[in-house]
């Protein structure tokens, strides 16, 4: 029979639990995967290329455009080129995938059990994860949107058709496009917590963010309400160039910003709260 001679340190000496330790842990986990920097870099380059490509097209085929620089600017073309619809779609897909994998990478491997056994406060873990994800993806979006604006206007300056960030609406387009990244990443994270399997969750995120908006039109009152509640539609509203004709059910910029905020908040709440009682 083993004789009890010594005892381990009493657990009373445990230091107070701090949220910032979880933030630091999640930060470490986020960057210790090789796929993180590569995913961000690839996503950034693809989005940048989509925007630069459109501007380069305008620069190259300027004669076919057949416009004077003044007319080009007055039509809002430099703003439309600043962040194209294709770039917005690509940005959302890339960010949604990164956000989804940040969650499902933990569930699909079984790591989540190790994590929750180490930190039983599940909501704190997920709040830390969501905070790190939001911070990184906001910075990512800001860098990509600002770089896109700079590159696009530099290309257009070859035809003296560029605008500055001070041009009416320019800053709004850059900010709204930058925020697409955290918005899509949070949506991906919420879907990831619910679905858990990587491939299925990425697919579901893309369906929610991209496929559903394509299937809806805003010609009817009900469908307009649904459409206007979707982030892709809200982004289109925010980056709409000055002469875009309003539909039957016009909506304000403030309304579109509200959709951005509400959608992000709802996704964050789902991602944090959904894991509380489910078996892992």
């Amino acid at each position, binding site marked *: 029979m083993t004789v*009890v*001679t010594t005892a381990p340190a009493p657990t009373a000496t445990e230091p107070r639990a701090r949220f910032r330790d979880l933030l630091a842990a999640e930060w470490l986990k986020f960057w210790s995967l090789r796929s993180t920097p590569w995913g961000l870099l690839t996503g950034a380059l693809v989005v940048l290329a989509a925007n630069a490509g459109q501007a380069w097209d305008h620069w190259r085929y300027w004669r076919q455009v057949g416009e004077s620089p003044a007319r080009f600017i007055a039509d809002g073309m430099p703003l439309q080129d600043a962040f194209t619809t294709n770039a917005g779609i690509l940005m959302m897909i890339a960010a949604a995938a990164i956000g989804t994998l940040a969650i499902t990478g933990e569930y699909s491997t079984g790591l989540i059990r190790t994590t929750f056994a*180490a930190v039983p*406060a599940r909501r704190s873990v997920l709040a830390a994860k969501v905070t790190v994800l939001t911070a990184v993806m906001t910075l990512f979006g800001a860098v990509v949107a600002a770089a896109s604006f700079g590159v696009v206007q530099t290309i257009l300056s070859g035809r003296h058709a560029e605008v500055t960030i001070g041009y009416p609406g320019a800053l709004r387009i850059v900010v709204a496009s930058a925020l697409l990244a955290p918005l899509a990443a949070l949506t991906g994270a919420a879907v990831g917590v619910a679905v858990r399997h990587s491939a299925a969750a990425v697919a579901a995120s893309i369906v929610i963010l991209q496929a559903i908006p394509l299937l809806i039109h805003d010609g009817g009152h009900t469908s307009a309400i649904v459409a206007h509640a979707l982030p892709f539609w809200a982004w289109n509203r925010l980056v709409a160039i000055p002469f875009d004709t309003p539909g039957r059910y016009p909506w304000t910029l403030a309304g579109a910003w509200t959709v951005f905020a509400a959608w992000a908040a709802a996704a964050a709440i789902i991602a944090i709260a959904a894991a509380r009682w489910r078996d892992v």
Partner: protein
Amino acid sequence: MSGGPRRRHPDRVIEANELTKRYGRTTAVQDLTFTVRPGHVTGFLGPNGAGKSTTLRLMLGLNTPTAGAVTIDGRPFRDHRRGLRHVGALLDAGDVHGGRTAGAHLAALARGNRIPRSRVGEVLDATGLADAARRRIRGFSLGMRQRLGIAAALLGDPPVLLFDEPLNGLDPEGVKWIRGLFRGLAAEGRTVFVSSHLMSEMEHTADHLIVIGRGRLLADTAMADLTAGHASLEDAFMALTAASTDYIAGGNR
């Protein structure tokens, strides 16, 4: 046993009280009541599918019991905001992300529990993984993953340790090492709870046994009492489990 272990540290006791867990129509464990005391290595035995892993997950609050309760330290584990200083656990060596290095994996666990970074190096040394710290876990053998899981369990220097089949994939040297490790941890007054199906190994390591079959408790006894009258623990185990239920291979589940 005559005169069980003295309860020097009743606060380190694991207590399961009519613990029941059903997944849909499948009952994984039913009405499990037992106590695991400190200062011993307690073996947790049962055939495949007996509910050992489920019981361990319930202990750690990873799964929620359908009925009953299990407490560690007199409270459900999930009441702790941070776990590593209370309970160290190795449930499945595969519960890691292969893309991370061993060092990063442990560093993140330590950081979240406010455990000094220096402790990572200590547990890597203690488990013989110091040279593998910068390698990605994807390239680890099962034995190395087991060592990594044990390193994680030791991070918080906890008074209670849970291990689910920790010997899988370990070489003879590793098995010998782990035997000494468990006995040492118990000798320090810790509660050490080890599930295994390797009877000969348990015979050398555990001094108390909890045996379950088909989710029900079959025995909760000192090693000596269970093996009395049998040639080996394996024989005693076969006799006990065969006589008790109908979960034998080919039986209904």
